[in-house]
């Protein structure tokens, strides 16, 4: 075990995969001597040089398109889109090319491209919008969003080894804030299964990335009030672990979903809908959703702080859900 930051875990995974597989290389802006936005590619250029760590022009669509094309020729490129706000520049390539190629060629074409990007609020306080739900909506794409250094490493490794396009959403608040244990050597976290972050009996909270930490914070407070919260770290948004979520809801009968992205059309809406479809009779209270209100994430800190869900908001949603006494099943 080593204690590393979220950012170091991501870089470590990329470095290991590049050592292991000569077909893996990185395309991005400022990933060369500069070390990547927020030092998210630190040291890779020194070790692997300009052939495998390629500083690109500000041409996001071409970067992703070229990665897809190289993937069809047997390479396994990683594209770094400095911030999630620039994903829309490459949208055609992601949602029409990368996502469709395998299905529409009846499996002849595989697109082992990893697209990594940074979203959410963070120390850098720029480019805070979170767009991950858009991609979970599109068949043919896999979407992961880790909340811990260990999962950052394990999911990045899985993404690079995956034969389908995977988007890795790296939440910026977590980047340098957490130092945590990460297994040494090979560490792969399969894409799909969620992580039980805290076991509990009364209410299930399904959260992503930063909100996992806030949900745990809320859970600690709620424990003192006699509410035992189960926290599920979704960590993979497409596919997502319906099995773990449904089993948990069968047990608790109460569900709160929480993410930093907008509540409307967020990944939480999909989870809430699936639970309503498939576990309706187990629910003892209405499902509660916690997410950003429908406002573009503003720039000034006091406004942004107000928009991004707090531990208190998650806690309040849990309290309401726990209070609501539906029929016990």
């Amino acid at each position: 075990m080593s204690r590393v930051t979220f950012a170091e875990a991501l870089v470590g995974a990329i470095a290991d995969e590049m050592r292991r597989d000569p077909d893996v290389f990185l395309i991005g802006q400022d990933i060369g001597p500069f070390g990547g936005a927020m030092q998210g590619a630190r040291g890779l250029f020194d070790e692997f040089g300009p052939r495998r760590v390629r500083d690109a022009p500000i041409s996001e669509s071409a970067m992703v398109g070229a990665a897809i094309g190289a993937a069809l020729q047997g390479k396994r490129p990683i594209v770094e889109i400095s911030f999630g706000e620039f994903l829309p520049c490459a949208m055609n390539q992601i949602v029409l090319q990368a996502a469709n190629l395998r299905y529409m060629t009846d499996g002849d074409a595989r697109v082992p491209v990893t697209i990594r990007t940074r979203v959410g609020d963070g120390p850098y306080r720029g480019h805070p919008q979170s767009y991950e739900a858009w991609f979970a909506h599109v068949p043919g794409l896999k979407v992961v969003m880790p909340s811990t250094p260990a999962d950052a490493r394990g999911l990045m490794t899985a993404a690079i080894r995956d034969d389908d396009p995977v988007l890795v959403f790296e939440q910026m608040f977590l980047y340098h804030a957490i130092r945590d244990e990460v297994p040494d050597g090979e560490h792969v976290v399969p894409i799909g299964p969620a992580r039980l972050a805290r076991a509990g009996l009364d209410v299930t909270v399904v959260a992503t990335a930063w909100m996992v930490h806030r949900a745990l914070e809320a859970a600690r407070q709620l424990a003192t009030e006699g509410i035992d919260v189960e926290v599920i770290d979704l960590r993979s948004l497409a596919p997502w672990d319906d099995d773990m979520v449904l089993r948990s809801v069968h047990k608790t009968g109460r569900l709160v979903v929480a993410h930093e992205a907008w509540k409307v059309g967020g990944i939480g809406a999909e989870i809430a809908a699936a639970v309503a479809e498939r576990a309706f009779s187990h629910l003892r209270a209405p499902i509660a959703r916690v997410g950003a209100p429908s406002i573009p994430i503003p720039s000034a800190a006091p406004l942004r702080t107000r928009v991004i869900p707090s531990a208190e908001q998650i806690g309040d949603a849990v309290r309401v859900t726990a209070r609501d006494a539906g029929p016990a099943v």
Partner: protein
Amino acid sequence: MTEAAVGARESVVDEPRRTLEVYRWMLWSRLFEEECGRRNPRWFPVEGEEATIVGSFFDLRPDDVAAPHYRGPFVVYAMRGAEPWRLAAQALGRSDGYSRGRSVPFSGPLSVNIVPWVAGDLGTTLGVATGAGLAFAYEGSDRVCVVSFGDGTANRGDFHENLNLAACWNLPVVYVCQHNGWAISESAESYLPAPIAARAAGYGMPGESVDGNDVDAVRETVGRAVQRARRGDGPSLIEARTYRLGGHWSADRSPYRAAGAAEPWRAREPLAAFAARLKEAGLADSDALSELTQQLQAEVTEAFARAERSPEPGPDELGWEAPP
């Protein structure tokens, strides 16, 4: 700004009053932006690029539209009538800033006919600026739009699509590349295999390269393109060669840049050269220039002091749907 002073000018060796005004704005930009950088380690330094910025927009009519690059746009907003203290509040994200803390800090008021910055996605303002040109062509008016953008931004697909569209529809838009040699840590040699001005031929529009540290040359070159657009003869592309003397942001010491690389450009930075020329031409002496510096610094300091008295935007200013 009077209309007579605009457009018809053949040379920028114009009346001393206007020459001094240009100098004044360049100096204002230097001092105002430095103040921003002192308060925010994430500010984007402008030092060295003032001649390109002021020279590209100074001669526009108030009813034209200005769409300045994100690096250094405040002087453009100010020249067009934005209030310095509210720009300072904008930079600080305060309630009296023009976007009241909502947009990225480098935006300004629409009332002075600008294209605002909302998010930080580079290249998209090229489209909005082209649309201003579309509206003017549609109206049959003689208004024009000048849009500036970085040499890095020139590699976005939006650049190609907009220049081609503007050429197809003969739109009154002047595209000015504020070529400072860098895009964060990447140097222009790594992403520009050919000069940007040379691309113009491919779109069927005039393209010209100009010394971006020579404010007269910038005014003259952009002025010619503006006249052309005003006459209804369509868009132009101008590459103004300048240099980013500072880091990408204030606290960035540019470790990726070879030591001393900026020095030749520092020796050619536009304000000192301009001051020397003013003295040579007898338009101002050292005393007058240092007095001007002091006066502008006092104005800038006062603008920031007033901005700092502006409150942080409160939760009730979020607008739209209030959070639950």
